[in-house]
């Protein structure tokens, strides 16, 4: 039987991290990985730390505390910039999972099919890590390095996700594809944030998940979208060549070839949803 620590302050939590602990938040990834066996991890439960809770905003942008759950995100009044992330939140498991699972847990678990990653990439999100030596901030794209791998050091906690305020009015959207309607691990998903000026795309951030070990931004497509009018024709700007950063695989959910094909459709529809 392992130890269990549930600190109420960040200092206490960071102090404990001089030795290795398994961090526990909503438990929705933790427990399913431990079915039918004794749990002997030393657990650092971060859900009682006030500093990790809640969503706040300042001039720079928004701060989503690490233990923000999917439901809390959905219930918080936020500008249209967050519509895509909220759409993703509504499709993470069922209501039971959304009430417990956290955004930060989704990122730290670093599944290739994590639904939180593409919309946060498309928001240009940054990760704030805290350790006893201090805190550091890095882009989400630099945080997740592989299938279930992140740069988080054993002595660090993810304390917040930061979403910078875009230079112009912006909107976002998300589309998920699975083999059943609800409660499904994504075959592929796509997220987009468009900054809009004079009815045209001034800047775009597009990310696709479950088609590579880590969700990828599609820089070529982002570039191709600049200047596009927000009419249904915007979807036609998607070209199979834009998918170069993706490296889909065959698995029980779908074939690699299908993923390549389906992503084009998802992206076209996603972009048309802005018109």
């Amino acid at each position, binding site marked *: 039987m392992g130890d269990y620590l549930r600190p109420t302050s960040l200092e206490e939590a960071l102090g404990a991290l001089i030795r290795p602990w398994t961090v526990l938040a909503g438990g929705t990834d933790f427990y399913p990985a431990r*079915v039918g066996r004794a749990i002997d991890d030393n657990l650092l439960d971060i859900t009682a730390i006030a500093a990790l809770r809640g969503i706040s905003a300042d001039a720079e942008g928004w701060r989503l505390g690490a233990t923000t759950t999917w439901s809390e995100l959905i219930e918080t009044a936020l500008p249209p910039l967050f519509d895509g992330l909220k759409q993703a939140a*509504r499709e993470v498991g*069922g209501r039971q999972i959304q*009430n*417990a699972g956290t955004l930060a847990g989704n990122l730290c678990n670093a599944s290739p099919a994590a639904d939180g990653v593409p919309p946060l990439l498309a928001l240009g999100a940054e990760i704030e890590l805290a350790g006893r030596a201090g805190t550091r901030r890095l882009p989400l794209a630099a945080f997740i390095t592989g299938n279930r791998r992140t740069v988080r050091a054993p002595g660090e906690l993810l304390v917040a996700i930061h979403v910078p305020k875009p230079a112009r009015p912006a909107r976002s959207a998300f589309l998920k594809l699975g083999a059943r309607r609800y409660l499904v691990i994504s075959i592929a998903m796509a997220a987009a944030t468009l900054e809009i000026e004079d009815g045209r795309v001034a800047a775009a951030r597009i990310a696709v998940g479950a088609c590579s070990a880590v969700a990828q931004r599609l820089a070529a497509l982002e570039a191709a979208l600049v200047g596009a009018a927000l009419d249904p024709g915007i979807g036609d700007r998607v070209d199979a060549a834009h998918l170069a950063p993706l490296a889909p695989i065959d698995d*029980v959910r779908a074939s690699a070839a*299908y993923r390549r094909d389906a992503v084009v459709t998802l992206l076209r529809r996603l972009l048309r949803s802005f018109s």
Partner: protein
Amino acid sequence: MKVAFTLNGHAAAWEGPPVTRLAAALRDDLGLIGTKIGCDAGDCGACTVRLDGRQVCACLVPMGQVAGHGVETVEGLAPNGRLATLQKSFLDHGAAQCGICTPGMLMAATDLLAREPSPSRRQVEDDGKIVEAVMAACTPAETVLPAAGAAVGARLARLDGVPKVTGRDLFGADAVPADALWIRVVRSPHARARFTLGDLGPLQARLAAVLTAADVPFNGYGIYPDIKDQPVLADGLVRYRGEAVLALVGARGEVLAIRDAEIPIAWTPEPPLYGIDAATASDAPLVQADKPRNLLLDGGVKRGDLDAFTGCDATAEGIFETAFVEHAYIEPEAGWARRVADRIEIHASTQTPYMDRDELASVMRLPPESVRIVPTACGGGFGGKLDLSVQPLIAIAAWKLGRPVALVYTRPESMAASTKRHPARIKARFGCDAAGKLVACDVSATFDTGAYASWGPTVANRVPIHAMGPYAMPNVRTWGEAFFTNGPPAGAFRGFGVPQAAIAHEAMIDVLADQLGIDRLEFRHRNALRAGDVTACGQTLDHSAGLAQCLEALRPHWRRALSDVAAFNARGDAWRRGVGIGCMWYGIGNTSMSNPSTMRVGLAADGTLTLYSGALDIGQGSNTIMTQIVADALGLPVGQFTLVTGDTDLTADAGKTSASRQTFVSGRAAESAGRDLRQKILRLANAGPDATLTLDGATLKVSDGGVVHTLDLAKVGSLMGEGTFDPPTTPLDADGQGIPYATYAFAAQIAIVEVDTELGTVKVLRMVAAHDVGKAINPTLVEGQIEGGIAQGLGLALMEEYLPGRTENLHDYLIPTIGDVPEIECLLIEDREPLGPSGAKGVGEPGLVPTAPAILGAIHHATGVRVHRVPVLPHRLREAILAQGAKR
């Protein structure tokens, strides 16, 4: 750690490791077994509770996070025994079937209603968790119990429903004695391997026992008396991934704490035989040493002359393939055993108490009378709980150690160890004349029966009889064969192979109809088997063949759907709709084999009226159905009956809950038992057949044309009525000629689907199901069976595929949720079966059989793609759509 919190409005205290799952603490330590565990992984929703008013999966919440918070469980819904409105509504709508997921659904619904007092269907779906029994069943059941003589045909709410909606029903894992030892089974990670055991001494020193093959008195079991091929514990050789090798017995925490690395097994893996081609290759190694060519069994039906194909004006041909399908009952296998002097007593979830008793007696080398089976409530079976699972290990351990011993499978263990639906490859050729009259068919069905025989022979026998479909067909050759592989044992699963065969025959019918330009429904109507027709087995159907009536009932729905779909498709975008139709017939009961049921009804000296039913209710409703039947046969109201069910010491053998046989066979026995008791009472009172009975305490009044006889039961003593029924069948000859079943159910379903042609996804929008059930003893329960069958048939068609080692949980293995299940309309056709109770037949399996064919036909109608392999995962359909586009 000490945890103080609020539980259902009251202060509660708990102590234990804070990492303990809330679900485990509630069940194991706080005695609230209403919260069920179906997966321990957040997938099934059976453990849903509210934490500070928000629904969560109790299997994912550490007790450490509960401190200071409020938990509400199903037990809190009816605090002083009065059902909440929601619970009553679940009962009235027949929303609880087996009841295993009911507490979770109630808690999720409570949460939804707190946020949204009158939610739309969409909002319900957004909240939806996995639901086998669809909540959309909207036919109100009668809440007032009917009077004497009016039970049959009534929409009676399930008589055993209250414990299901209050969480008090006791399933296999719910009443394990506190002093029980627990078993953890060590299973093979390899599909085919030899192994040797190292020194078990260190493990034995830590545990109460470590069981090996050597501890099993007779180490072979199986459904058929002459095929006891499956070891309880493998002996040096494993034949599938998940096969049991060792049983660790000890305190629960101790057996769980043993690390895999501490278990001394040296494996020598061998290349496994996966699939029919591997098993039938000329150089294939044998799976079972005594089964040459890996062949389990083959046989078929021959009638007329296949040369008739030469005269056909249209012919169709195709090969169709299906996958291993998991039953995915929300209750994993569970139970406990104890030794009582020289008897062993098994409390477990099962579909077949008497077969379990005899099989355990064989495994333990005990006389059958020394084994008592006390079935718990069964949280879904679908055929998967017809085979032994936990029973032999708990029995052997309890016998050996003299202490109660429990075993509850985990979800991955249940999925790896239990039987599956047989993967099939069906090669079919059908021909008809220019008028669309069927002339000939030639069907070969090859099955992958996995590592052990299980119910493989039943499947291989049943399919050839049904493989031509429910049509008059003068020239027939059908063949069924099953081969051993290193896949999981394929066994019984709702329909015994007929759903696979129906995919093939219905596709053939569609192709023929399309070739001749005949409407697909009308083509079927033209060929439907009718009373007076002769089947391919040479059996004349004297009565109750209502397929034509089913099709007539569907006709207006079909025509409307065709025109709606045409209007929708005129949009010409990526979404295309289609309408499909599937027909089926299904022989009720065992194939050409005796399968009697005996039922008893007793009136005790104190006036207690008891139905002793060996027929197990696994959610389909036999507890209610049997009572309705016996009540009317006896002439007393349903409300006066108590029920004793399943216990082999207290009830007679009513056979297994399978083959859609309980209503027809046990129902008929119940009817006879009721009549028998009535006769005895009338004789005592010297009353005529039309007398009416009233029971008040120990006083039984018999009124006969104004004369009232009063019987004092205390003086009369207890009375017992008994009835037995064995459906009349005959053996089949070498050409499959004979009478395989006494009666058949018939059905036709139509599906309306929408295909996203760019993504290959399919949404079933609506199904209309017409079923000839002979007589609906309880229409609400019949509809529940049809709706559940459709949900499972949809899974077979669109998403379910068990791959050993890859889809062993409920997030990689997908079953339909409420968001996938369409709106369903049921049309009940009652073409009376004279042999059945009040004319009834069965409906347990028929609900599923036509569903996949109807969906596949609708996909073809929408896209032009004829699917030859299920499940039609999005990538498979998209590839087929692209390939077709390339051809054009």
